[in-house]
């Protein structure tokens, strides 16, 4: 899964029948600290996300594993809207055995 920010909607009238009724959103990928990356994805919305939402996108064949996207020709789905990402800090070296 990757983090992304929804930055727009993709509108289409002529499309594959299996995509009927699915909302397509344009998303810009961000890293775990919220820093924008230079990658864009068009993803099917399975959680009623809106513009500006901070979301989690599942990609590849896994994207078809929701009731909404089953058997549809898609490779990215918005599967969660993120409230918060807590990073515990790289201070957790947990005494890894360096063997």
């Amino acid at each position: 899964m990757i983090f992304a920010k929804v930055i727009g909607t993709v509108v289409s009238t002529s499309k594959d029948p299996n995509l009927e009724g699915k909302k397509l959103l344009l998303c810009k990928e961000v890293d775990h600290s919220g820093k924008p990356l230079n990658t864009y994805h068009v993803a099917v919305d399975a959680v009623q996300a809106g513009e500006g939402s901070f979301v989690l996108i599942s990609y590849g064949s896994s994207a078809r594993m929701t009731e909404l996207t089953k058997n549809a020709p898609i490779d990215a789905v918005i599967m969660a809207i993120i409230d918060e990402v807590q990073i515990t800090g790289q201070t957790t070296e947990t005494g890894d055995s360096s063997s």
Partner: protein
Amino acid sequence: MKLGRVIGVVWATKKVPQIHGCRLYVVQPIRQNGQDTGHPLVVADPKNIAAPGDRIVFVTNTDAAQAFDSGFAPVNASVVELVDDIA
């Protein structure tokens, strides 16, 4: 399967029903010696195995859904084991 260390938690109230009750972690992939390698990624924990700071084994791609009882979940990576020690 790959080694990683849980470095954070992703809180999401609104998510697809397939992953309800499943924690989502930010995981830093690590080498055998514990050194970081590559970029952090989000990993689901369907069996509630891990906690922040733990070293884990995770699976990626289509196999990640197999870690769920249903075998049907839109995830790209799942925790499958907690690492006690690497000999």
